């Protein structure tokens, strides 16, 4: 797809408008809109089953949304309508990389090979789509060495350099999570989408993950969009939090704003039966004030 004309402000990286996703009779996402700014860490939170992963799958092309528009605004000024691109081109051209809630590594390949697979498109071009590389002509040899250097860079960042030649399936859980992030970064993305990166990590591993994510943003300028349940991660590192419940946005703002939003508290903690009226009244009052 050719880039469309620029209609949004240059610091908005991702703009999701009126996104809806229907599975049969189930409305998984209903008219959901939000924006992610360039260079920000945006968190998407919500109770289980709220539709967070569905939003991710729509953004990364694994689902085709029923309605809505997802626009990605690259640094170079090019714009891509993600809902119209097939999944692999979203990574290849629009430069959106993702990780998965249940880790998806190439377990029978070594850690290093995992990172080399991520640089597939670059290396394919360098090898003249295999043909030139097969007969040893062209820049493939130099590019392959460069790919290994890039892999080494990310292995050092993710603290996996000692395990580079081990099969990815042999790594402990926390290391597999870091490897998946390093692999996504090897595709050189502008937006990195992380689906519950801290799930199953102990507090120390979560702290390492926080440091890694902040380091990624500081050094490469990559924006991050993450789904997370671990509030220590969300509140500490994110600049902007979007809360989703039953497929609808219930809150959107800074971590402090979201933390004190009664709707969010109600969604997460639930309320006693006799308090329902009170909460609804507060909510209506707030909404009235906002309007």
């Amino acid at each position, binding site marked *: 797809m050719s880039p469309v004309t620029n209609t949004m402000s240059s610091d908005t990286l991702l703009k999701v408008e009126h996104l809806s996703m229907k599975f049969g009779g189930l409305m998984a996402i209903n008219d959901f809109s939000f924006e992610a700014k360039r260079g920000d860490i945006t968190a998407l939170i919500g109770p289980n089953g709220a539709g967070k992963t569905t939003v991710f799958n729509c953004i990364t092309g694994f689902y085709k949304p029923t309605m809505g528009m997802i626009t990605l605004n690259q640094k170079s000024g090019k714009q891509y309508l993600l809902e119209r691109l097939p999944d692999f081109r979203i990574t290849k051209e629009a430069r959106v990389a993702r990780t998965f809630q249940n880790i998806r590594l*190439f377990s029978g*390949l070594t850690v290093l090979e995992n990172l080399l697979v991520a640089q*597939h498109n670059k290396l394919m071009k360098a090898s003249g789509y295999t043909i030139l590389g097969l007969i040893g002509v062209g820049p493939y040899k130099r590019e392959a060495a460069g790919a290994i250097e890039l892999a080494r860079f990310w292995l050092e960042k993710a603290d996996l350099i000692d395990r580079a030649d081990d099969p990815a399936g042999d790594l402990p859980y926390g290391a597999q999570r870091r490897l998946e992030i390093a692999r996504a970064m090897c595709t050189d993305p502008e937006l990195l989408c992380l689906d519950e990166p801290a799930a199953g990590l102990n507090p120390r591993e979560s702290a390492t993950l926080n440091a890694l994510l902040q380091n990624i943003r500081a050094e490469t300028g990559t924006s991050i969009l993450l789904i997370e349940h671990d509030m220590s991660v969300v509140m500490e590192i994110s600049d902007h939090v979007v809360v989703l419940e039953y497929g609808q946005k219930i809150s959107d703002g800074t971590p402090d704003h979201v933390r004190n939003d009664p709707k969010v508290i109600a969604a997460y903690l639930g309320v006693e039966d006799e308090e329902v009226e009170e909460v609804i009244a507060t909510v209506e009052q707030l909404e009235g004030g906002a309007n």
Partner: protein
Amino acid sequence: MANIENSAGKPDAGLVRKGLTEALFAAVLSFGMFVLYVGLKTDQNINNELIIVQRWGLLAIFVAVAAIGRFAMVVFIKPNIDRRKLSKAREGELDISTEKGFFRRHFLKISLIALLLYPVVIVALVGAQGSLKWVDNFGIQILIYVMLAWGLNIVVGLAGLLDLGYVAFYAVGAYSYALLSSYFGFSFWVLLPLSGIFAALWGVILGFPVLRLRGDYLAIVTLAFGEIIRLVLINWTDVTKGTFGISSIPKATLFGIPFDASAGGFAKLFHLPMSSAYYKIFLFYLILALCMLTAYVTIRLRRMPIGRAWEALREDEIACRSLGINTVTTKLTAFATGAMFGGFAGSFFAARQGFVSPESFVFLESAVILAIVVLGGMGSLTGIAIAAIVMVGGTEALREMDFLKAVFGPDFTPELYRMLLFGLAMVVVMLFKPRGFVGSREPTAFLKERRAISGSFIKEGHG
């Protein structure tokens, strides 16, 4: 295993008792299994009446073999293996830490030299005429299957796409050569690459509709594709002459030198006595070169982005897509590359036989090639070559076992038991080496040291 310690000398009484019970159990089991198949046999007597022949002696042999085998296994072999493992573990010796011997380290070089010398040695040993059988039946026949299995390995072993119709590409290659050489008179050296290209084209044609399918569904569709090609060959009689096949296909030439009795023929030109062995030896080196080409390309491709993408596709297709890999073209290239080598092998087959008919391309051939890939260990070239030697060489060797007639009577034809041998070999290998002869995987790139990856981490693919 408390009795490992004291079983160093004589097996103790408890172990013998255990062995006897297990032997009795095995005897009962084998009696139950064989009593109807071996103990009783239906036959016709001289008046064409159906009678039952009782073969209690043969049944007793079967039962005794099972019982004695089980007893020996429990009392002698098992403790012995355990003891050896224990002493190895005590010495702190691990399989991976042991230094490989000279033979294992230079295995590939040694086997290549052995293959290059093979026809020369055979001719020196049994003479030109006697060498025919050894070079043709054992040499060329095995190498054709090695090449086919290496070609299928790209699709099944690397990309993890289960293809049950691989023989179709072999057929496309064979018929491309047979038809184009008999109708248009093109030479072997022109048609060899052409056959590969045609087969690759068919690989793409098959690949397109089946790309969305995975696992069992893919297997069934590829199986159907193989049958379609065969049925077209049978029924398109105007072109393919149907079940009669195409005969007197021109032979391959050595840079234009034909292998025949003419004045310009190979034997006359080099002042050698006339013999058909030269052509066979030439074909042996030709298929060896084709095998080496297949191996070289496979090894090179594995270290290129496309080969890594194939293996990544086998491990996890969704992750591949999330990394920007176009899985459609990646699958198509795997199909096309595998099919191309099948096509090469097919045109070689036609040139060697001088005759092709649809009968050579039945589903059983696909099954045999796939069995070789699975037995050898998916993805491993060495393992697959060993499996091809064992399976194809084994079935060829059955033809030679005339002495078995002395044991089982004069109507015993050993080659009819080749499928039994295949099944037995499958069961035995899968019991002891569930990942095939070579279950581990060599990484394609490394930072510090190249370590083989255990088969337990490698996925088989699902589509």
